[in-house]
């Protein structure tokens, strides 16, 4: 078995993870399972990032998506829903057809576009320095403003989240 | 106050579950889960039994006076941990051994049965103290509340009498239980204690 074949097998494994996870994420009536599906899809995506020469992003994907976003969603589920409600939240039949049509249409159009397009490589593509140091350098210099902006957005999001959830001092029982 | 209200103290009004358990007696042959193919092998079975006997995790479960002596057994003076049994698990799911230490009364009986059922098999029970064995000093004529022996509710493997027994007594009970499980009395070298000295 060649080393290349092995990597290829893992590649397929990641794709299957994504497909299966995403399907579970949107179709499971049990929200906890849906989140597990989402986590699985994220994990698969992280795997694909490895093939795209960016182990750093793969790890960040796991750290942020799996370690933070998913946990936050699960937390939301556990706090916001009683178990009974969770069981009752089956997928409504109302929008299914509409949703199916829309998404299939999008899929079709985009696939069409994909298959018709001949992608052209820019000059010097595939090369260049993609090390962590270069990434940090770029983040601090060229994209410094964007970096600052995203920091501000995160900050505001944090403050906003706290403000929305804040309900004054809750306990007045005694 | 009519006559029928009084003087009927021995008539227990048990809940249906308790009543049926008391009538049938303790379920001697409980449904044991399928142990899997490995256990059908004699040697493997012996090894597993040896392991079980030497790793009895009791449940944190005290009822009355004897519970204090049970605690004492876990403490530095007696130290049950020498036998690997100091892991008192608060959840019945993780415990192998239920030490019924104290009086079981009617109200508690259903809880005792539930807890026993919740323990995953294989599981064992030690009835510690006279109350758990037979109701002890409370098994009197006008008894209206105390269950006269926990073996009416759940199958008991080893009895440790006393009121309360000394911690050594309970330790002896655990050794007896090990003997029952693995077929050997404490498999590691042990000095024989001469029969209890008497006068």
């Amino acid at each position, binding site marked *: 078995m060649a080393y290349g074949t092995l990597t290829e097998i893992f590649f397929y494994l990641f794709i299957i993870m994504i497909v299966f996870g995403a399907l579970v994420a949107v179709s499971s009536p049990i929200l906890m399972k849906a989140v597990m599906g989402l986590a699985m899809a994220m994990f698969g995506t992280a795997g694909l990032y490895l093939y795209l020469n960016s182990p750093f992003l793969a790890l960040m994907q796991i750290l942020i998506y799996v370690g933070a976003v998913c946990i936050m969603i699960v937390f939301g589920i556990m706090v916001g829903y009683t178990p009974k409600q969770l069981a009752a939240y089956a997928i409504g039949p109302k929008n299914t057809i509409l949703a199916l049509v829309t998404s299939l249409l999008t899929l079709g159009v985009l696939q069409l576009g994909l298959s018709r397009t001949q992608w052209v490589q820019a000059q010097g593509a595939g090369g260049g320095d993609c090390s962590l140091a270069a990434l940090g350098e770029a983040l601090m210099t060229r994209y410094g403003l964007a970096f600052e902006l995203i920091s501000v957005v995160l900050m505001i999001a944090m403050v906003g989240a706290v403000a929305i959830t804040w309900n004054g001092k809750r306990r007045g*029982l005694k | 106050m009519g006559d029928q209200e009084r003087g009927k103290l021995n008539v227990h009004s048990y809940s249906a579950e308790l009543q049926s358990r008391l009538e049938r007696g303790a379920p001697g042959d*409980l*449904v044991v889960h399928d142990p899997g193919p490995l256990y059908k092998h004699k040697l493997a079975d012996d090894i597993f039994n040896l392991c079980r006997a030497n790793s009895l995790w009791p*449940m944190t479960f005290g009822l*009355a*006076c004897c519970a204090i002596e049970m605690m004492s057994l876990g403490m530095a003076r007696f130290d049950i941990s020498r036998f690997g049994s100091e892991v008192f698990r608060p959840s019945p799911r993780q415990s192998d051994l239920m030490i019924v230490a104290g009086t079981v009364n009617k*109200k508690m009986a259903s809880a005792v049965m539930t807890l026993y059922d919740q323990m995953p098999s294989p599981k064992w029970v030690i009835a510690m103290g006279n109350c758990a064995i037979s109701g002890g000093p*409370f098994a*009197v004529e006008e008894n209206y509340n105390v269950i006269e022996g926990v073996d009416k509710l759940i199958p008991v493997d080893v009895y440790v009498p006393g009121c309360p027994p000394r911690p050594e007594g309970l330790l002896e009970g655990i050794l007896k239980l090990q003997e029952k499980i693995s077929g050997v009395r404490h498999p590691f070298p042990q000095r024989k204690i001469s029969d209890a000295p008497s006068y």
Partner: protein
Amino acid sequence: MENLAENRTAYTDLEPATDIPNENHYYLNMGPQHPSTHGVLRVLLEMDGEYVVDPQPVLGYGHRMQEKMAEHKNWMAFMPNTGRMDYAAALPYNHGYVALFERLCGIEVPARAEYIRVITSELNRIVSHHLWIGAMLLDMGAFTPILYTFDDREQVLDILEDVTGSRLTYCYFRVGGVCKDIDDKFVEKTRAFIKRQRERFDIYNKLVTGNIIFIKRTEGVGVISPDMARRYGVTGPVLRGSGIAYDVRKNEPYSVYPNFDFEIPVGRNGDSYDRYMVRLLEIEQSLRIIEQALDQLPEGSFLGKAPKKMKMPTGDCSFSVEAARGELTYYLVSGGGDIPYRLKIRVPSYSNLSVLPELCQGMLLSDLVAAMGSMDLVIPEIDR
């Protein structure tokens, strides 16, 4: 499958099936088997998140018909039962019971016997406090202190076992005295214990009293105000933590307690920390009493003139002693003969625990555990 209950979720199946009015609240069932309910107390908690809205203790899981048995046995035959009510400090229970009959029938007790009673009772009180300190710390997640206190406890148990013959549920006092005399070895061992215990306070203080986590967990938690204590009839160290110096040994002195010089430690705020401090200081006071009693110990007989077959006069009689947990009152109604007509036993923990629903409203679950631990509950005593 016969065994239907096997898969039931642990701990939750005793909850009431009824829905609670507030949708956000839910029931949490603590006990009757739960590590921090000290035996068989069951507390049904109505919770809002981690906050306790309404804790309702459910008693009776240790009910052993003590009052019923007292009415059907002659007075001596009930004697062993007294030690089994509060097994953590059985001798004050013995003491109250025999003193009750001595009062009712006017029986004299030799001085030596009274001294022996006081010494052993106080030793038993120390044992009880040892057990409590360990158990409370265990509730709060510290495992090691209980082993240290049990180490000290075993020293006392050795002393007591030597004279009473048992380790826990003593049946040592008799009407008119005690059933076995103490000897020089006992005195010697007790003195050695007093010395040792005084040295051990250092470890308690370093490991527990001064520990920031312990202080943070107990300070301001479960504050019992003097008014609340009065309305509920709270007694013992729990009451003294609230700053009221009520102690039966001082208030209605019995036995030879007036002969000793001791203080009643009181707290200031009535929180769990104060209750802890009061008990710790009480150990020291008990040591003082024992020391004085050993110094004054008179010679003489240890079992006075007691009737072999005692006939009680008709009438009622009450006797209160200070048990380790508070005021213990035996109230006897006698219709003559040698079987009590009615024996009402007022146990301290019963009233102490009845504060819980009011005390723990709006508390965090962890605080409830700490507050309940600081009460020093012995459940079979409450249920009798």
